[in-house]
């Protein structure tokens, strides 16, 4: 992109616009974490900076992976993550409690997080292998439904509704752009609408409460509706330009719960106002748009579908989190990627970005396989 005689070729080849954007979002996140710790690098900002830098390096190095390699590992990796999900489930059963992670030495692996990019890859690979003429047939649907349904079910019973929903949304997006007949989606939506009461009946108590509270947060502002109410107060009290950096009373005085994780957007907007909020949304929009461009420009079907799915992953993260924070969706525990404190979301998004960059590099080098 940036070409100059002085800059070495490998560096100049990097997607600098995306890199600036991602670093910008990351910096906003670090500033907000610094503020929400009361003006301190500890306990969050410093740790987050290290995690961010680490995964960003991983993402950048992933951009050299060849598309053929990605294609080749799609199914094996999917299988491995699925096994990990089952392991987690068994551990939880043995330990008599909900468990979402595996302890591998010092690292805590959360297989459901891996599943987000992996489901994209495996579905893209599946439709890539499927002969174009079969796309309207039953053959195009049931394997994909199985590939998607298994991890969805495993994550749902963890229980982690937020991640399960994201996996299903991402998967459906890939299936949708792959060209499966549109009536299936309309019909599916109708079936889901009809099945809502049934799903409600099957929910855990805390999940049900979340749904009820989403529908009417003011009914119990000091109890379970507290999160949404306080988050809206934080955002609404910021006004156009915010209360000023390090001046957010909602987050600093702990009225806003989870102000450094899921509700980090409220913390940020309280201090930066509508202005800061829109800026962050635009930055995410640019990243997602870049991903969508990669998909549109892709020359292979796998790259098309994978890029679309990976962009959708980032999109769903951002959209679900912001809707949740602003009271448009129930609180489902989806963090704001690259901004919220916590390694797993950063990892997922960086993996997605790494894969996107790899796919993008293939396009530019003209190393077409079709």
């Amino acid at each position, binding site marked *: 992109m940036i070409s100059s005689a002085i800059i070495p070729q490998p560096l100049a080849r990097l997607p600098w616009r995306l890199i600036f954007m991602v670093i910008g979002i990351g910096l906003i996140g670090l500033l907000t974490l610094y503020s929400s710790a009361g003006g301190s690098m500890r306990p969050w900002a410093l740790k987050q900076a290290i995690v961010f830098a680490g995964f960003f390096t991983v993402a950048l190095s992933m951009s050299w992976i060849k598309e053929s390699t990605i294609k080749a590992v799609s199914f094996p990796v999917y299988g491995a993550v699925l096994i990990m999900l089952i392991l987690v489930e068994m551990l939880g059963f043995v330990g008599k409690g909900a468990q979402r992670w595996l302890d591998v030495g010092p690292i805590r692996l959360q297989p459901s997080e891996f599943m987000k990019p992996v489901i994209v890859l495996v579905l893209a690979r599946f439709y890539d292998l499927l*002969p*174009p*003429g079969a*796309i309207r047939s039953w053959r195009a649907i049931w394997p994909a439904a199985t590939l998607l349904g298994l991890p969805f079910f495993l994550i749902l019973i963890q229980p982690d509704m937020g991640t399960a929903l994201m996996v299903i949304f991402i998967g459906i*997006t890939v299936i*949708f*752009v*792959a*060209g499966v007949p549109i009536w299936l989606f309309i019909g599916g939506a109708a079936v889901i609408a009809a099945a809502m009461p049934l799903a409600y009946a099957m929910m855990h108590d805390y999940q049900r409460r979340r749904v009820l509270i989403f529908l009417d947060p003011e009914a119990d502002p000091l109890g379970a509706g507290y999160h949404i109410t*306080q988050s*809206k*107060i*934080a*955002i*609404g*009290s*910021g*006004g*156009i330009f915010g209360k000023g950096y390090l001046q957010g*009373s*909602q987050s600093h*005085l*702990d*009225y806003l*719960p989870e102000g450094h994780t899921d509700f980090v957007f409220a913390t940020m*907007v309280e201090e930066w*106002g*509508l202005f800061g*909020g*829109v800026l962050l*949304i635009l930055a995410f*929009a640019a990243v*997602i748009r870049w991903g*969508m461009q990669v*998909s*549109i420009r892709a020359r292979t*079907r796998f790259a*098309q579908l994978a890029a*679309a799915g990976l962009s*959708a992953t980032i*999109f769903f993260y951002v*959209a679900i989190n*912001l*809707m949740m924070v*602003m009271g*448009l969706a129930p609180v489902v525990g989806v963090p704001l990627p690259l901004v919220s404190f916590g390694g797993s979301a950063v990892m997922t998004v960086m993996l997605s970005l790494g894969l996107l960059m790899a796919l993008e590099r293939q396009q530019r080098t003209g190393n077409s396989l079709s």
Partner: protein
Amino acid sequence: MNQRLTSAHQSISFSRRMLLIGGAQVAVGGLLVSRLGWLSVAENDRYKLASENNRVQLIVVPPRRGWIVDRTGKPIAINRSDFRIDIIPEQLEQPETTLRTLAEVLELTTDDVDRILRELKASKGFKPVQVAENVPYEKYAAVTVRLPEMPGVQAMRGFSRFYPDGPAVGHLIGYVGAASAEEYEKENNPLLITPGFKIGKEGLEETLEQRLRGQPGGQRVELTARGKLVRELTPKPDRSGNTVQLAIDSDLQEFAARRLGEESGSCVIIDCLTGDILAMVSMPAYDPNSFSDGIGRTEWSSLSEDPRKPLLNKVLNSLYPPGSTIKPMGALALLEHGVNPADRIHCPGGYRLGNRFFRCLGRHGSVDMRRAIAKSCNTYFYAMGHRVGYDNIAPMAKRLGLGAEFNLPVVSQSYGTVPNSEWKLRKFNEKKGFVERPDWTASDTLNASIGQGFLIVNPLQLAIMAARIASGRNVQPKLIGVHKEPAPLLGIPPEHLEMVRGGMWQVVNGDGTAGASRLPLEGIEMSGKTGTAQVRRITGGQRGQSGDWRYRDHGLFVFFAPSSNPRYAGAVVIEHGMGGSRAAAPVAKDVLTFLFDRQKALQSLGALEQQWGGTLAERTARRAAAIKAASAARA
């Protein structure tokens, strides 16, 4: 071919669907931005307020109660700083361990702990619940060092009411206490249920409540969601209550209280020109200091069962037959109705009315008006009263303040009765059996003429009567403020007043009934009139001069001084004191001496107090210790 066609078709479908996805994403983005705009612009005011309400809490700080000072500015009721322990329910994390620790350190009783638990359950948020007040410093310090392990407990300085003169001002000032549920309902002011806030419960503390209370302030504090104090914001200052200056001379008040000693009685001293009440004492009295801390059951019952009635303000709420003290008033009425003061009546030891013989205290022989006053001759007043008729005497009684309800900031006044024929008829119709017949009889007149029968008054009225005779002015009693302006004249001819005052001078300084109570002062003389009020009908020879204390006669004395140029007037009533000259006049003598020569008065008081077993303060302390011991023995 088919394959390629489908492939191309697939590519078109992909582009179309990508457009759809992109469109949907843009739509969601637009929704998010507009939602953000809605919250932070359109709803900004509402959420700003909500955020401020979160952040800032107001902790009500009770205002300091205004002082009550005497006419010289000497404090009568002040605030003493003390230590108190409260619990802020919202910040309380471990109710059980915290309460256990507090109960141990502060030595709380189970009753206290129950009350705290009850109040904790009922309250919420930042309204503190009182654990203990008036905590001694050592215990306060012991709680303070444990505060870090007891979040929600608040140890702070508060204020408690203090009355330096103790029982001497008990009935006059009253006391303060926490508002009762009814008082809170009546006023519906949250200040009333703030821990540590006290309202006036009796006497001037109650009647002057609004002036003394002041405006509550608030400590505005920034708190975290967990209730931790971040910082104190600019506080809303409280305004202390106003200082109220009384007409009372607190030294005189205290002296009078001490001089009454162990007697059950009252003493009122009035500035006879302006009406300022310089002293208004009823003894025995409760110690308002112990009432303000909340009174124990044992102390309460010992007070309410005492036959000398320490809970009753005898100045205002006890009614006595005035006895002979109203004879000067009667003389004024006789003069007004044309009786020549030189007219003589022969006193053979009584007065015969039909077949009844009304007794006099002695055989006075031939007496004129002046001598009748000096010797307190009943026969003269029987005869003259009978000649003029009581309906002509009663107006003078009322004119001099008897039977009057005064405009005073007091909780209640019992104003008694000045009877006449119309009154008797009304009573006959209203209350069956209260009077035997509807018409006013000659014997009614005779009884009323010597201050017995239907006539009953309170000691303040007697003092006002003395003041009006002394100055000839329409003196109104005043408790609040210092007044300089003399009251307007009553319009009684000065020669009438001179005549009566002369008789009163003779009572003390001539060969009258109170000759033993001359002021021990150079050039200052006291004039007065003794009185003895029967507690029950005279049976046989016994005249209430001995026997059971409860049936002994009351001793009364009204007086003014200096005789030549009256400035002070007053009344002393000693219940069951057996006679005015014996019990009441000596008290008046000493109290008036104090006004002119404190040294001398305190010396003679010292001698008396030695007989009684210590000063008032010492005896009060001893009584409190005894009550405490009794209460401990009962518990």
